[in-house]
């Protein structure tokens, strides 16, 4: 909402310091976004009179003018404009003047003839033909204003208003009007606000002979007032009115249309004017649109209507979309004779839905959708009548049609000063509260507050508390401390998140944040099979684009994207992690599950399969999870992403038979899909599932009292035999005295037969009760050799 300060002064006359006004209104709740004084970027431009206009001696298209600028001697200016003649009054940019757009004018010579400034067009002053309809666009602006030679152009053409831009919140449609903001201004400064009381004389005539109005849907139209103006004289509005519209950001059109806009800006009540000639059957029906109906709106666009939309129709067809925009066909034209004024009240939700569906939000719909009281219709139309007579542009019938099936009563709220003070934490005397409330038009009587009709937002004592606080001053509220003991702590899931974050950063991983929505194409990029259940994502009905159209069912493609991006930025290595959610659809109409996942991505440096496995192992260690089993990632391993990994270099980690992580080298095809030209590795850990696995407490194990016995063992086995199988055999064979089993060599090649490998372990054995004898250790090794031998492993 842009407010003209001149207009404000009509209602609350004060000597305003604009900056302070903006601050003070912001502090009582009408937030100012900024302000602009018209013509403030124009300097040293004055009204001049052309004394003579003669052709330029060296040019066919230039003329030389002698101009009286009110400084005694006339000055000489050369111009290329064709529309000037002696006697014209024009804007003159003097030597050293500024024009909008950073243009600076200095004296100089044009084709050898001295020119001491510039004659200005509308455009050069930042104006358009709408501001001064009598002027031409492509020529010098010949002033028809009542002004003096030498006068500053700003004051001469009324470019000295200040326009303040407000951010009006959706609960205060009353402040989308000059009067509403004037009320707030008066209340802010403790001044009395005189409610306007528009008056008109009218001419005799029975409107019911001219037109009939039927509200067919009383739920969506709570009131409809029709007025009739005969013998209108369409033309431009007077300057003061055009200036007001301009300062409010509305384009002047013609006097009748301008009046409806003026009233909307002043009262906040949208109005409409129809050309009575085009209202077929002289009937106005407020009804729902019929299937298949359409209308060409004032902006010249054909709009398809649907039955939930409310329209204003004549006997045949819609002539306006109720509360949104009028029809082109029945709009005011230069030859319009009789005009029907509409001041009506339409249901906000309905207007909002219609405007959204038609894709046109107008000044009118923006006001209706916030809710306007039907009692606003009457003062608005009376003001329109008053303006018609003031502008002398038509004859207003002294009767009007007012369809108002269910007039509402003023709202009433209990006046509870003690509660308000308890609620706010203040000690404001009740009389002071009454004073604040009366300033904004509330009436307090016998413990009841009567709410003025235009304050649709006031329903409860909390609303009253806000009104009191606003004028008491929010900044007079002293801070107090919360009382009582609060026992705050992190939940186990939050503790786990923080542990994972510190483990990952300690392992050299950088955290990333990626979008939760992805393109369905990402599933192709990570080679998900066509029938993968991971392709069943939660879909966004109205996405910004395909790239962000589904909620991811796997965190891994986002990680691959980031790896690719860093690779493209030529970052030589990357070690990344993300703690993010996946969104797994459940049943129709229910919310998806949002399990938390840890994604890891690595390329470059000394990374290989085992370094990524090492990261995964270290994370489990940080969480005190021991006994993790690793198996090749294949088949039904609990992860749908196996196809994005190298089949021979990917694994699944499990604890107690539950698969909790997948990791490995990214499949070469997937790397190619992402344009990553180096080997890269990824891992995904099911964080939500970890919560059930993590041991609750750690227990201390006494340090060993007796020495250990160490034995090494080396063997040759099939290349295909997993080391984990050998480890299991050894562990079982040795039994509880095995303290540590570590692999120290795997060898293939010379001296080892094709398809075989040599594997060597070191065993540390210890008894907790006594020193382990050599015999005991040797016996254990004998068991190991026997166990291994039984599976065809050749112990060396």
């Amino acid at each position, binding site marked *: 909402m842009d407010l003209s300060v001149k207009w404000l002064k009509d209602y609350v006359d004060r000597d305003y310091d604009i900056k302070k006004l903006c601050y003070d209104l912001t502090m009582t709740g009408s937030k100012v976004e900024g302000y602009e004084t018209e013509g403030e970027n124009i300097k040293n431009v004055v009204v001049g009179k052309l004394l003579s206009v003669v052709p330029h001696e060296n040019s066919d298209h230039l003329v030389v003018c002698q101009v009286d600028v009110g400084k005694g001697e006339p000055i000489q200016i050369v111009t290329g404009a064709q529309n000037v003649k002696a006697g014209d009054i024009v804007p003159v940019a003097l030597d050293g003047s500024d024009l909008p757009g950073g243009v600076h004018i200095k004296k100089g010579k044009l084709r050898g003839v001295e020119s001491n400034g510039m004659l200005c067009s509308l455009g050069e002053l930042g104006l358009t033909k709408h501001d001064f309809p009598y002027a031409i666009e492509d020529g010098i602006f010949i002033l028809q204003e009542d002004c003096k030679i030498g006068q500053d152009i700003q004051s001469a053409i009324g470019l000295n208003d200040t326009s303040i831009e407000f951010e009006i919140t959706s609960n205060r449609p009353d402040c989308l009007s000059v009067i509403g903001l004037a009320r707030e201004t008066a209340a802010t400064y403790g001044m009395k606000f005189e409610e306007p009381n528009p008056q008109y004389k009218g001419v005799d005539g029975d409107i019911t002979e001219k037109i009939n109005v039927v509200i067919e849907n009383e739920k969506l139209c709570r009131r409809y007032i029709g007025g009739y103006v005969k013998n209108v004289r369409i033309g431009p509005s007077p300057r003061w009115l055009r200036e007001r519209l301009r300062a409010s950001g509305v384009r002047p059109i013609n006097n009748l249309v301008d009046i409806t806009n003026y009233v909307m800006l002043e009262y906040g009540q949208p109005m409409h004017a129809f050309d009575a000639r085009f209202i077929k059957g002289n009937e106005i029906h407020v009804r729902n649109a019929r299937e298949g109906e359409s209308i060409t709106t004032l902006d010249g666009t054909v709009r398809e209507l649907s039955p939930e939309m409310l329209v204003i129709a004549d006997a045949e067809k819609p002539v306006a979309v109720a509360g949104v925009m009028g029809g082109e066909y029945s709009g005011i034209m230069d030859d319009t004779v009789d005009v029907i004024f509409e001041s009506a009240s339409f249901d906000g939700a309905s207007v909002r*839905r219609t405007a959204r569906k038609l894709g046109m939000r107008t000044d009118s719909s923006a006001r209706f959708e916030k809710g306007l009281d039907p009692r606003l219709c009457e003062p608005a139309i009376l003001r329109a009548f008053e303006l018609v007579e003031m502008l002398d542009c038509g004859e207003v019938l002294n009767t009007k049609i007012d369809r108002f099936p269910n007039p509402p009563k003023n709202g009433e709220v209990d006046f509870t000063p003690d509660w308000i003070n308890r609620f706010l934490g203040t000690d404001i005397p009740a009389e002071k509260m009454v004073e604040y409330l009366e300033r904004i038009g509330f009436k307090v009587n016998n413990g009841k507050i009567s709410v003025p009709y235009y304050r649709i937002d006031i329903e409860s004592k909390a609303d009253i508390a*806000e009104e009191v606080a606003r004028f008491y001053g929010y900044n007079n509220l002293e801070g*107090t401390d919360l009382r009582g003991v609060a026992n705050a702590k992190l939940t186990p899931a939050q503790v786990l998140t923080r542990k994972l974050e510190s483990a990952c950063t300690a392992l050299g991983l950088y955290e990333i*944040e990626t979008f939760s929505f992805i393109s369905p194409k990402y599933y192709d990029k990570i080679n998900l099979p066509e029938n993968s259940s991971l392709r069943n994502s939660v879909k*966004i*009905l109205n996405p*910004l684009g395909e790239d962000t159209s589904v909620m991811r069912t796997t965190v891994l493609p986002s990680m691959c994207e980031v790896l690719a991006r860093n690779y493209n930025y030529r*970052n030589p290595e990357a070690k*990344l992690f993300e703690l993010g959610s996946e969104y797994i659809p459940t049943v129709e109409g229910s919310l*998806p599950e949002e399990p938390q996942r840890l994604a890891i991505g690595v390329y470059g440096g000394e990374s290989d399969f085992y370094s990524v496995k090492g990261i995964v192992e270290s994370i489990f260690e940080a969480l005190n999870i021991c006994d993790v089993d690793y198996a090749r990632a294949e088949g039904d391993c609990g992860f749908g992403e196996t196809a994005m990994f190298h089949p021979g270099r990917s694994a699944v980690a499990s604890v107690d038979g539950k698969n909790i992580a997948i990791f490995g080298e990214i499949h070469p095809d997937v790397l190619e899909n992402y344009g990553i030209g180096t080997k890269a590795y990824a891992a995904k850990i099911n964080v939500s599932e970890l919560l059930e696995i993590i041991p609750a407490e750690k227990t201390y194990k006494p340090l060993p009292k007796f020495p250990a016995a160490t034995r090494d063992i080396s063997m040759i086995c099939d290349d295909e035999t997993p080391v984990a199988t050998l480890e299991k055999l050894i562990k079982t064979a040795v039994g509880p005295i095995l303290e540590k089993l570590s692999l120290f060599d795997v060898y293939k090649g010379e001296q080892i037969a094709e398809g075989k490998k040599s594997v060597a372990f070191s065993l540390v054995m210890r008894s907790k009760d006594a020193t382990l004898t050599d015999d005991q250790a040797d016996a254990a090794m004998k068991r190991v050799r026997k166990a291994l031998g039984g599976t065809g492993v050749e112990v060396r």
Partner: protein
Amino acid sequence: MKQALERIEQAAKKELSEIRDSKELEALRIKFLGKKGDLSAIMKDMAKLSAEERPVIGQIANKVRTDISEAIEKRAEELKAAASELKLKEERLDVTLPGRAPKLGKLHPLDSVMREIEDIFIGMGFDIASGPEVEYDYYNFEALNLPPDHPARDTQDTFYISDKILLRTQTSPIQVRVMEKKKPPIRIVAPGRVYRSDAVDATHSPLFHQIEGLVVDKGITMTDLVGISKMFIERLYGENLKIRLRPHHFPFTEPSAEVDMECFNCGGKGCSMCKGEGYIELWGSGMVHPKVLRNCGIDPEEYSGFAFGMGLERLVMRKYGITDLRLLYENDLRFLEQF
């Protein structure tokens, strides 16, 4: 014989001064003090001496032996010190060469600031609550006093999954879920991702983070909200920055207030960070609307509360002087390494 002993001592001391290393020193020790050494050779002649002379010469001989031993020991220490000095000198390193410690990773700036804020609130007795990002319209809007077709819904362009399910546009639905489950006293903050249908540019993102707070108890006042705002700013910025409250409107609070804080960059004088205002927006806040309490099964006659919420991205951008929001979601390592 006495002279012979003195000669030996002099010779030993002279040779000692020319010794270069421990090997030569050992040879010298053997030469003078060894079993077949010079001193021993002379001592063999002791028997020839008279009984009177023997103890005198014996004493002298012992002294010569002690003196030489001490001199050798002293020389040995000198040599050790020299050798050690030489070794230290040889082992001198270029200390400006880079270290070889394992490289630490870092948290994303959004996350590290979020943790900082969470910790401040935990210290003030707030639990951390969470809720689903794909949320029912009821929790995101209706229960928060935003019925269908409420005009304030326009300010939060919403991604819909169905007519009843959406991507939450704010963290406020978490408040509702907490209030439904827990009786007051309630003191929580709710951080998380929120979604709005804004195209990506330097200041907008369809996904961003909010952190929201809620306090409900008997006798909670608007001045308590002012108190918490001041305390939070003091903990986050460590200074006594002034705050300013402006009336505003949120459908789920009444009265509602925008809380501004004095610009930490210029101390209120006006700078580019606060766009010359001297103040920057901290959070939107207000007293929980009685309708919202009632929707959650809490009697507004018995309890009252306040809520506040802020966006994380803007706070992080201001903290680090980041001017383009897109950097936060691009995850370029050259960016992430800086925090």
